């Protein structure tokens, strides 16, 4: 594999700025890699090669003229196909948006472009971000580079897989119930969900408005932190965005000093349903943190057991409303318009043809949960449970600096294994969901391979709202020590992908 592909984003940026490498050759190398392996991995739905090379050329010229460029200038990045990028298709993994070209950029996209990052393409995802395996994509699943017959996680499986396959060093995903963290966990990469409101949702096609957050995905902690600093921050176009400076994630990532930190292990997030290898590697990682000077404390969070049920009421309710705009009238798919059918009929036929099974399930549940007579018992009650979960976190963070747990109960399962069992699929989000409900910052860091199957295991760190930097502090500590133990990045052990052609 071309050495360029194994270089971290931060190092690439430094080399490009120093003109040891040109952005153009970096982009070329990655586009070649994508062409070589993506037929097997299927991380991408759209490659924006021509525009990427044009951008790269422009950046090289800027640098040659001594103009100021951003900290990740010239580095390639993959954008989850749920974020708008004007001029490129945004499908959200759905037939109903096949071919839709948005006329505007998401704020996150705009910040990346302004920072001279090179967006090379849009990545695959579970349809409208609903899923934990990317099997719900209308355009076929993405395959985990660790084992092509396994899921890469979801809903952001494409972003995570593109990193693990060395197709790009940076990706931006979105996390509603674990869609950044769980894929990161099962692909051995780093994925971060900022504090709710930390990153703008303007241009993020909404799933559950009160839960969604865009976030950085990378292979290393420092790369993720650098990306985090570029995309996060207040946005006047998003009323729910936080009007405060971005926490010092870079400083924390560089420091990685956990001595004296109080780390809480969540009592409820273990035991039945958790794979032995996951629990083992998790335990080892916690032990490691202890040797690095952190104090480990057991922390019960009794209401976490209600997180999954509350989530699967709040999300469907909000998404049933958010997805109502897909009605064939102004954009997207239109089916059944034969000149006789009414608008109502065309709407219903289009949504029937354009939405997949999981999307339909959640829309129906959401419609039910909000309907008169049921609101109080379902949605209303779920929002109260949410308060209780928040209070569990508050109480916990009064005694510890961060909480940790496995990122997901299992390693990557086989494609097709859980598709017919929605409830079983939902259990993948057990560990990640509480943070979405409470809105606090949370991330997944790779902590090893499970002995039984050799597949990646992730450790989840959870920090209080606005304390995103603590995530990076713990992640950096783990990475430094583990990489030392492993003799290199965990991802050095990804099997060589058969190069097509």
């Amino acid at each position: 594999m071309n050495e360029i592909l194994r270089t971290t984003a931060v190092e690439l940026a430094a080399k490009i700025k120093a003109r040891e490498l040109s952005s153009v050759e970096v982009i070329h190398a990655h586009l070649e890699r994508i062409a070589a392996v993506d037929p097997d991995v299927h991380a991408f739905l759209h490659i924006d090669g021509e525009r990427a090379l044009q951008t790269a050329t422009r950046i090289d010229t800027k640098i040659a003229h001594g103009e100021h460029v951003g900290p990740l200038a010239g580095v390639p990045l993959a954008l989850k196909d749920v974020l708008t990028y004007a001029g490129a298709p945004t499908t959200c993994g759905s037939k109903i948006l096949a071919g839709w070209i948005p006329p505007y950029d998401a704020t996150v996209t705009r910040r990346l472009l302004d920072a001279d990052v090179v967006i090379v393409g849009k990545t695959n995802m579970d349809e409208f971000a609903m899923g934990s395996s990317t099997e719900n994509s209308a355009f076929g699943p993405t395959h985990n580079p660790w084992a092509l017959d396994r899921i890469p996680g979801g809903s952001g499986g494409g972003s995570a897989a593109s990193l693990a396959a060395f197709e790009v060093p940076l990706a931006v995903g979105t996390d509603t119930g674990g869609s950044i963290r769980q894929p990161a966990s099962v692909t051995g990469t780093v994925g971060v969900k900022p504090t709710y409101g930390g990153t703008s949702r303007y241009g993020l096609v909404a799933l559950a408005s009160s839960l969604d957050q865009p976030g950085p995905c990378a292979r290393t902690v420092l790369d993720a932190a650098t990306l985090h600093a570029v995309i996060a921050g207040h946005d006047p176009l998003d009323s729910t965005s936080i009007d405060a400076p971005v926490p010092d994630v870079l400083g924390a990532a560089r420091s990685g000093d956990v001595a004296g930190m109080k780390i809480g292990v969540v009592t409820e997030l273990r035991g039945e349903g958790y794979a032995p290898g996951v629990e083992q590697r998790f335990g080892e990682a916690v032990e490691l943190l202890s040797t690095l000077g952190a104090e480990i404390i057991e922390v019960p969070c009794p209401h976490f057991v209600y997180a999954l049920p509350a989530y699967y009421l709040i999300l469907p309710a909000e998404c049933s409303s958010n997805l109502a705009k897909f009605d064939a009238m102004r954009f997207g798919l239109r089916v059944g318009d034969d000149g006789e059918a009414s608008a109502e009929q065309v709407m219903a036929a289009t949504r029937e043809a354009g939405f997949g099974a999981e999307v339909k399930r959640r829309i129906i549940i959401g419609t039910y949960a909000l309907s008169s007579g049921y609101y109080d018992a379902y949605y209303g009650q779920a929002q109260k449970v949410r308060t209780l979960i928040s209070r569990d976190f508050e109480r916990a963070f009064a005694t510890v600096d961060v909480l940790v747990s496995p990122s997901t109960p299992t390693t990557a399962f086989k494609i097709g294994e859980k598709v017919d069992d929605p409830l079983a699929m939902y259990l993948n989000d057990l560990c990640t969901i509480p943070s979405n409900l409470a809105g606090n910052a949370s991330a997944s860091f790779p902590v090893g391979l499970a002995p039984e199957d050799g597949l990646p295991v992730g450790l989840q760190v959870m920090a209080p709202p606005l304390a995103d930097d603590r995530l990076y502090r713990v992640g950096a500590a783990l990475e430094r020590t583990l990489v030392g133990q492993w003799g290199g990045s965990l991802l050095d052990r990804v099997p060589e992908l058969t190069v097509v052609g």
Partner: protein
Amino acid sequence: MSESTRVDPVEAHLALRQAQHGHGQARDTVPYEEAVAAFDPVLGLEVHVELNTASKMFCGCSTTFGAEPNTQVCPTCLGLPGSLPVVNALAVESAIRIGLALNCSIADWCRFARKNYFYPDMPKNYQISQYDEPIAHDGWTEVVVDGDTSRIGIERAHMEEDTGKSLHIGGATGRIHGADYSLLDYNRSGVPLIEIVTKPIEGTGAKAPQVARGYVTMLRDLLRALNVSNVRMEQGSLRCDVNVSLRPSAADPLGTRTETKNVNSLRSVERAVRYEISRQAGLLRGGGRIRQETRHWHEDSGVTTSGRSKETAEDYRYFPEPDLVPIAPSRKWVEELRGTLPEPPAVRLKRVTSDWGFTDLELRDVISAGALNAIEATVAAGASPQSARKWWLTEVARRANEMGVDLEDAGVTPQQVAEIQALVDNGTINDKLARQVFDGVIAGEGTPTEVVTQRGLTLVSDDKALSVAVDEALAANPEIVEKIRAGKVQAAGALIGQVMKAMRGQADAARVRALILQKLG
């Protein structure tokens, strides 16, 4: 009724249904006086006000009326995937001021909510509105009808966004029925609206239609004084839905109400209420039931017709808008805004009553004609209160009635009325000629002064010309001249008439009289 005493129940039922469903005058409508004698009407009025903010409720697109279609839209008001709303501060300020002017409590903390339903003019297929947490609630206002003051409870005033506009193509009337397809313009989508809902208005009896009209008129004047809206009903910046129900007496529980839309002018408000009372009374008298439904007012035929009857009420599945954060107006801000309110209607009424010196009857007429604003503006432009009243309640009112529009839409402004009076005052024209000036102004020929010039309506003040006409009249009527010389001065009247005719009315009658008498010694 027919001479047969046996009525086929099926036929009777069919006749009733026909009356219910048919267009045109329902056969079983009871005369209004009978209707209000037999039943006690209860009203509910819902008024939507389009605010005059420069930008929309949740985005920065312009709200200017009449722009080219789809040139004032952005991802947010077009409801594109990924778009988000951000609240317009001025809209919130206007909402609070409206609430205060209606004596409402302003919420300490409130939220927006989504009202979910599918309709092509609503890009997100939900409307961002307010549900159980309106920004203003539990207020009151007063309406004066024929000297009687009614206190009307205000249930709530809340913020929401307007929808786009549809053109229905292919049907006979341009309305939705029978259309082949529709065309959507989203310029209006997202324009800020304030919805003001009254509490049930009881105890108005036979005056219900006037009270309804009086309320909307008062509200219009209030909103204009607050400067929060253009309040042009014919442009749609002030919309009114009227709810009407009947019950046998005030002691009985409320009856089933109907909601009537497409009430596009003040006079429509009065007429629609009146019609609905008659129609419902007729139905009830005939043993029928009132269906809870939305009806459509037809100004041309003067009836309401049934819209699509909803068997079950639409379930809007309201929930708090997750893309917006709560609004918590500080009490300090609220009090600051209270300081910006114009004088309350009752106080204003007192003031103009004492300033203008109208009699009670004159005042009543002014109020029921909805002319208070117009007269005040005319006085401000320099006319005397009495002259202002005269013109608005005679010339302008007559023409407004002929055209079937409200007073203020007759085509003449308060400034123009003042100008006309000024022309009379300075002797350029007289009252009679003024009527022609009104014609000209309303026809769009220009300002009053321009019309006078263009139509050649100036009073002849030149004695020489008058003198010639007088001499001619004197010469032509020797018998009358005799009578006058004999002392019967009143006989001059006929001569004056002739001179006026000869001068085509462009003479000051008093001057003519003086000239006649002067010449006859």
